């Protein structure tokens, strides 16, 4: 049974995955804390409120071959998909931040505290964040400061502030520096006007300066700081109040956010495309659907209505991504839209390049949607058609692909300023290439401009 490759830092316990079941061991180093937190009633309360993932204690013997010293084993439900903070939308990261603070405040009410504030301890069920690490909680000791404060700033506050103050998407930087954005780095790029915010001045500027200049005197002073529980709670509440108000600036309003309203479809064409997707999904009944280039999530929603179990969307445009996330929240869809450019998907990162598995390593879709995307990849990004279809059809056994011909206004736009070096980008070629790899179960022209939808399934 493999130990989860991301679960190695904490000596208190590890996560193991076996045949789709997820187990967490509690080792001797963490058992006293774990029992104290359990007796406080915190786990029951937090999981009944949906803030913490459910956990059921089982027989430790289930891990006896891999972790014989485990004193407790907790079984957690299997999640649809493991996503990373650098793939979350702005509002996704913000929701994960407020969840982390809410849990810390709730823990204090039970006489407990959190040892860290790692964004990787949060996962999503649809657009709803849920905390997954039971061993992040320990009994609170009088005088103890907020232990994960610096990590909270790096992994939640600073990426959000980067976008709020500069309009620059936080995800590419976060992906590169996957432990988050340090206060000293962020302080160097903040615009001058943001310094007038006392909170930015304290949390980013001053913290950044102290981060850069660590002296023995300051370390001694830090060791002597004692905060009352009320002070810690006040700090957490004040941070929560602030984080909940953070919003991306107008710069993030992008044309793709409006795409659904401005796209080149007549109402009839739109209906026939939706009908095609609906009928294919209803016949296939896929558990998990991946919607590549999901935009604001219109077809993800249709897939769910037609009976898909859950949808993971991928979209590189921050504005469209925010719109998709809002759609999932307001309509309570089991739909998680993530930040991803399919021409440059998340690689495997971290220790041994196994800690944060990449896009390909997390493939779990039963069906893939690739609507109005193929022409962007082939005509816009110059990716060879055969490679794109190979890659696409390796993601899931079934799927729907939209072919946009060169005569279509959107494709013409892509070719307006560059020579047409794509002689093989034709409907005939696409048909032949799909047929070499799968069975075409349905093919239909859905617009006057000649857009074609193909549904494929295993041969």
């Amino acid at each position, binding site marked *: 049974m493999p130990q989860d490759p991301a679960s190695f830092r904490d000596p208190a316990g590890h996560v193991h995955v076996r045949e789709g079941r997820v187990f967490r061991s509690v080792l001797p180093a963490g058992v006293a804390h774990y029992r104290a937190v359990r007796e406080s009633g915190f786990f029951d309360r937090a999981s009944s409120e949906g803030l913490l993932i459910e956990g059921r204690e089982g027989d430790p013997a289930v891990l006896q071959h891999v972790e014989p010293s485990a004193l407790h084993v907790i079984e957690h439900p299997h999640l649809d998909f493991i996503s990373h903070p650098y793939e979350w939308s702005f509002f996704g990261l913000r929701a994960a931040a407020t969840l982390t603070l809410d849990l810390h405040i709730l823990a204090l009410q039970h006489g407990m505290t959190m040892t860290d504030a790692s964004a990787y301890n949060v996962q999503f069920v649809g657009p709803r964040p849920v905390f997954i690490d039971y061993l992040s909680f320990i009994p609170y000791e009088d005088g103890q400061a907020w232990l994960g404060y610096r990590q909270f700033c790096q992994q939640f506050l600073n990426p959000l502030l980067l976008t709020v103050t500069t309009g620059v998407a936080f995800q590419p930087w976060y992906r590169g520096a996957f432990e988050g954005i340090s206060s000293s780095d962020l302080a160097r790029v903040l615009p001058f006007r943001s310094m007038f915010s006392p909170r930015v001045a*304290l949390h980013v500027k001053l913290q950044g300066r102290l981060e850069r200049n660590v002296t023995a005197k300051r370390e001694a002073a830090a*060791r002597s700081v004692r905060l009352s529980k009320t002070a810690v709670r006040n700090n957490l509440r004040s941070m929560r109040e602030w984080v909940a108000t953070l919003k991306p600036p107008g710069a993030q309003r992008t044309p793709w956010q409006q795409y659904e309203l401005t796209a080149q479809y007549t109402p009839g064409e739109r209906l026939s495309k939706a009908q095609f997707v609906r009928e294919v999904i209803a016949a296939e009944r896929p558990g998990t659907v991946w919607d590549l280039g999901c935009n604001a999530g219109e077809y993800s929603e249709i897939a769910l209505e037609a009976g898909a179990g859950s949808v993971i969307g991928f979209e590189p445009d921050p504005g469209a991504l925010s719109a998709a996330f809002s759609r999932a929240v307001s309509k309570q869809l089991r739909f998680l839209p993530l930040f991803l450019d399919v021409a440059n998907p998340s690689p495997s990162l971290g220790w041994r390049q196994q800690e944060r598995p990449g896009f390909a390593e997390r493939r779990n879709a039963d069906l893939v949607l690739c609507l109005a995307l193929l022409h962007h990849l082939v005509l816009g990004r110059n990716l060879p058609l055969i490679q794109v279809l190979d890659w696409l059809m390796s993601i899931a056994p079934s799927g729907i692909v939209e072919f946009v011909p060169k005569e279509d206004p959107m494709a013409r736009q892509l070719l307006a300023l560059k020579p047409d070096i794509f002689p093989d980008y034709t409907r005939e070629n696409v048909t032949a290439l799909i047929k070499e790899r799968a069975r075409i179960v349905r093919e239909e022209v859905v617009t006057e401009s000649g857009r074609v939808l193909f549904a494929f399934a295993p041969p």
Partner: protein
Amino acid sequence: MAHLIRAVGVVALFPVAAHAQYLDPGAGSILIQAVIAVAVGAAAAVKIYWRRISSFASRLSSRRSKSDADT
């Protein structure tokens, strides 16, 4: 006054035993928390005492306007 101390919340500055932690909280980040605790606590205290302060101020100003009227 006890209420005020609780709201401000920094108990004292004296040494505590090191906690068994697996995350380094950062010396600077702990110092900042003390600063923020004072700032947040002071804001909370002002909020709590605001009514008292404002009623005191209004009483003061009404007394002054009364004495202005007297002269």
